[in-house]
């Protein structure tokens, strides 16, 4: 009952098609990740599901309620954390929390158990103005405010954008805790490494779904040979590899270049090619595909 059903949803802004006949389902209690670059349509989909935007065509339901007809009911039962910090910067931490509790017709005390593990971390600063908090603490407060009325479904629009690596990690641990409370979570992120922490992910690009499965299956579906390549002159190597006849794709990937080749290409031919280009200290190793590789391959 607490799931999300999306059927044939389209939305365009003028001539720009933001969502193109999108259809998928999020199971009750599932932690579902929406992956995609900026402009993929993630925020538009969130706005439709949180009843802030009316789709052009198609229908969607959240926790069993239709987004067009039962928007008032939906608003009582969802938690929404928008992409940018949307609490009152001039109210204190405690005042913000009280405010949102009151608006939802409840009290902080009544739902304290749910937010306790998160709120305890920011409680020492409860008198501080929200605007003066650090990025990680702002995000924790925003999560508390989104959870204060015990929502059935939680929408997190790029919750970790602009947050440091440690806080990002902590945040995903917190989301794991929420799973126990049976809350369905739809989370969008531009960070591919975070996808692995969802139960299922959908790769979104210009309003269309490129792939939808568990992170492991998405990665396994990648069946081309993938190599991690490195040499002294990194950039020249990248340019050279893109010219090579065996190359399908060469992408920057940290200190290595992730090289996708046609099937049948072996390590030796890559090394030989690099050597003929005058590169020194050549390293070529078989690599394990990540979600990012899959994404780039599908794009």
């Amino acid at each position, binding site marked *: 009952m607490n799931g999300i059903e999306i059927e044939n949803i389209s939305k365009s802004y003028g001539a720009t098609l933001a969502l193109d006949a999108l259809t998928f389902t999020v199971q009750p209690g599932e932690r579902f990740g929406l992956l995609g670059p900026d402009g993929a349509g993630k925020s538009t989909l969130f706005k439709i599901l*949180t*009843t*802030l*935007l*009316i789709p052009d065509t198609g229908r969607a339901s959240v926790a069993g309620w239709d987004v067009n007809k039962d*928007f*008032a009911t939906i*608003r*009582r039962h*969802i938690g*929404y954390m*928008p992409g*940018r*910090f*949307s*609490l*009152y*910067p*001039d*109210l204190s931490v405690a*005042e913000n929390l*009280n*405010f*949102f509790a*009151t*608006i*939802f*017709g409840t009290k902080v005390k009544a739902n304290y158990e749910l937010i306790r593990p998160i709120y305890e971390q920011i409680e020492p600063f409860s008198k501080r*103005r929200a605007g003066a908090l650090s990025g990680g603490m702002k995000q924790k407060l925003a999560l508390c*405010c989104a959870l204060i009325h015990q929502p059935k479904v939680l929408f997190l629009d790029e919750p970790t954008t602009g947050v440091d690596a440690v806080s990002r990690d902590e945040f995903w641990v917190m989301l794991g805790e929420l799973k126990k409370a049976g809350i369905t979570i739809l989370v969008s992120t531009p960070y591919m490494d975070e996808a692995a922490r969802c139960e299922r992910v959908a790769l979104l690009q210009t309003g269309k779904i490129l792939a939808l499965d568990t992170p492991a299956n998405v990665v396994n579906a990648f069946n081309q040979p993938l190599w991690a390549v490195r040499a002294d002159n990194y950039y020249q190597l990248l340019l050279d590899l893109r010219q090579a006849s065996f190359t399908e794709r060469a992408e920057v990937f940290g200190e290595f270049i992730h090289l996708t080749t046609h099937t049948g290409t072996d390590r030796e031919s890559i090394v030989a090619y690099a050597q003929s280009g005058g590169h020194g200290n050549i390293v070529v190793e078989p690599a394990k595909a990540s979600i990012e590789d899959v994404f780039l391959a599908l794009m």
Partner: protein
Amino acid sequence: MRRLLYIVQKEFIQILGNKAMLPLMTVLPIIQLILLSFAADNEVKNVNISITDLDHSQLSRQLIGQITASERFTLIGAPPATRLADEDLLAGTADIVLNIPPAFEQNFLKGWPVKLQLLVNAINGQAATVGAGYLNAIIRDFNQDIRLEVPPGRQFKAPQIAISAANWYNPELNYKHFMVPGILGELVIILVILLSAMNTVREREIGTIEQINVTPIRSWQFILGKMIPFVFIGMLLLTVGLTTGKLIFDVPMVGNLGVVFLYCLLNLVAVLGIGLFISNLVDTQQQAMLVAFFFVMVFILMSGLFTPIESMPEWAQMLTIPNPIAHFVAVMRKVLLKGSGLADVAWNFRITAILALVFNGLAVLSYRKVR
């Protein structure tokens, strides 16, 4: 209900939490009130006059003496030729030039018609007409006095109509008593329009509206929760302003202050509707400021505060009907100076109530959660 109260509480925390805001909202308007009331004075004093006397007779000197004896006129020159007097006018040093023709006395004593020429610098229309009026009055008096003095045989006794005027409601013609109530009304309304116009759009700018919109809060609760604190601020400013008016300007308060406060309450509700409506329509605080500024300027200049509504063209008089500042200025003056009661300002109450309904209706309708 609890929800509404908490929104009100939140708005108060936000307003009072900003330590500069409360003094800014009360002290600044009071400074304006004092400054404007002292400066906005329609009484015309110090009219510079240049008189060309081509007659040089006893009679002409007597007339000049009478004019310069008046406190309102400063004789800045007595050029020997009318051409030179014109130059004073062109240079802007003289406000009025009076030309006394040759044979002025002679013709007068013969009983022939005598003409004086009055040239008025009408750049400042009001000073010009008022100054010329004063001068005409002096010449008229002079005319009458002199007739009594001419030899009896030449006297023609035309019956005279004597007019004696009494100034009701402001017997001393104290201009400040007239201006303070109006300016105070105007200041209260401007403050509230500007504050409310900046309000919801600020939530849009900092993004909080997005979070609010997904909550079960109702439009009217949101709007009402924002209005109540502003009504308080407006009433507070009115109270401080009336006290200042009494202490500094000794403004008479003949009527029932309760009527003033009651009307202020209603008027605040109406202008808050305007402010919130503006706020809902625009995207940034800058836009809100510009739109609010446009309305405020029109409201002030067409409110009858500085220029009487009765002397405006008819279409402009019609435009003052939906102008909340015009009504507020009128009610303030009527109640404070004339002692008008509720029944006397019922028309203003009725129109303002309609304005309040219309503007607030628009404000609630234009606050859309879904785009």
